[in-house]
């Protein structure tokens, strides 16, 4: 059964076409990631699904209810953890959770017990009766998640749950989320621009770029869809743009991109491509500091699809290297 069905959603804000026909399906009980750069339309998609805003066209169902036609039924079935914390800073953690529970229609003993359970689960039991103003960023974020869970929703939306957290708080948030996903029989829709986060948490994911899903599948499927290997060359000096065009022109290289002093390329076989990459660079007098090769990571998948999307739009037609993803 599908917990979330999204079909051809379009939404325009003024001159910006935020969604250009987003579509995907999330099965009940699964953790689904929407991965994409800032401004790709991830948050807008979640806002439509959480009934905060209406799409211009298209159709979406959450827990079997239409987000436009039956918004209150959807609201009862979901928990929404917005991108920026929505906690009441002048209230305590317990007061925040209790109020949220009440407006979701939970009350009395059941609510008290649930609030205690969540405070314990999220490691906030000791800080429960302190005013939120004094919480750390990680604690505030965990309370946000608690607010989304207080009424035992069927579907939880997590919009960039770890943005702005330090690496330690992020890692502990991932642990919490993994435990929640197992313990609470939840469907989770997660948006993120951290590849690692999607890789670690999501059962399946969709890469979103410019208001559209460009590819969807399990992290493994997506990595496999990029056949071959990734070669990363660290340049001795800064001529990355030159190096990129030289390497991209080589027959063995599927695609190349550069960032700072790093030149990334995707090749069929590292052993065969590396010598020609190095000699091509040497011929033009570009020094090389280090070369590494690895199996494609989600990073490569992301760059491949979002990069190609941009290139395709910029060059009207673009290039094709023969590899494709499934689930389009």
């Amino acid at each position: 059964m599908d917990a979330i069905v999204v079909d051809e959603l379009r939404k325009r804000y003024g001159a910006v076409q935020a969604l250009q026909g987003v579509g995907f399906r999330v099965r009940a009980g699964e953790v689904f990631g929407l991965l994409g750069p800032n401004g790709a339309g991830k948050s807008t998609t979640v806002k439509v699904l959480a009934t905060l805003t209406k799409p211009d066209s298209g159709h979406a169902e959450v827990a079997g209810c239409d987000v436009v036609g039956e918004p209150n039924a959807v609201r009862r079935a979901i928990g929404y953890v917005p991108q920026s914390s929505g906690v009441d800073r002048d209230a305590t953690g317990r007061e925040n959770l209790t109020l949220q529970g009440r407006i979701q229609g939970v009350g009395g003993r059941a609510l008290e017990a649930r609030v205690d359970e969540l405070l314990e689960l999220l490691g906030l039991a000791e800080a429960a009766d302190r005013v939120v103003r004094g919480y750390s960023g990680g604690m505030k974020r965990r309370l946000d998640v608690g607010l989304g869970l207080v009424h035992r929703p069927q579907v939880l939306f997590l919009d960039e749950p770890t943005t702005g957290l330090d690496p330690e708080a992020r890692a502990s948030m991932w642990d919490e989320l993994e435990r929640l996903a197992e313990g609470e029989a939840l469907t989770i829709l997660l948006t993120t621009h951290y590849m690692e986060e999607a890789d670690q948490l999501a059962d399946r994911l969709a890469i979103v770029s410019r208001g559209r899903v460009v590819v969807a599948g399990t992290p493994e499927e997506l990595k496999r869809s990029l056949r071959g290997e990734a070669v990363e060359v660290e340049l001795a000096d800064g001529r990355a743009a030159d190096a990129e065009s030289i390497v991209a022109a080589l027959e063995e290289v599927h695609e190349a991109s550069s960032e700072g002093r790093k030149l990334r390329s995707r090749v069929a076989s590292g052993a065969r491509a590396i010598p020609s990459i190095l000699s091509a660079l040497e011929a033009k007098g570009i020094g090389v500091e280090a070369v590494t090769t690895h199996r494609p990571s989600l990073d490569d998948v992301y760059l491949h699809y979002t990069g190609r999307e941009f290139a395709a739009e910029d060059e009207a037609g673009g290039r094709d290297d023969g590899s494709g993803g499934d689930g389009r």
Partner: protein
Amino acid sequence: MTLAVRHTWFMVGRQLRNLMREPIWIALLLVQPMVWLLLYGQLFKRVTQLPGGGFGTTSYITFLAPAIVIMNSFFGATWSGMAMISDLDRDVLPRFLATPVSRISLVVSQIVRSALIAVIQGVIILLVSLTLGVSVHTGLLGWIVILAAAALMNSAFAGLSQGIALLVRKEATMIAIANFIGLPLFFLSSTLISIRQVPHWMQIAAKFNPVNWGVIAAREVVLRGTHWGSVGLHLALLFGLSVATAAFATWTFRAYQRTI
């Protein structure tokens, strides 16, 4: 409807609890009315002897006290939208909007909270006035009328303030607008001086000034010869205005929702 009332109650509870955590605010907010009552009241105490009169009492503080309750309630109301802006800035509202919470309760609770605080402050101002020798001629009923006028005065302008807050969504703009509305309406009323003492055009303007409606209703029950018809009329006018501004605030809330 019952859901809206329950949710309003939850939301008012949230705000009052947060306020009670820093009760110093209620005291700080009372500094201004006390200055008017204690300093201004003494400074101009002989104003009641002006030829032409119209004060209805020889004690200026008796004339002034009920109007200060209304003034305090009015100024409190013009600022009440700041709490809405704070909720907008801190993204508390979007979080509530993803729940089945009654939409109207999010607006109405702000108005109810504001009016409740005005009533609490009104009681304190009246108690202080009592120790200064002010007696409310109509007794307990008079107290109730003064506090009702304060509550209605507050909700009338709190509705307006919430609506403006939802339209401008910026603190600095909100402060400018509150000042722009507040001072002229205050000086175009009979708060400080008998209406018979002011220029003719101001007397006309005061008739249409809601602040003056509240002052008239509150003052009538303090002084001798209470004109109950006038009290009822002015309270009814304030009630009508409260309904209208609450509707305006609700409409601006819908407009805000469309911008998310």
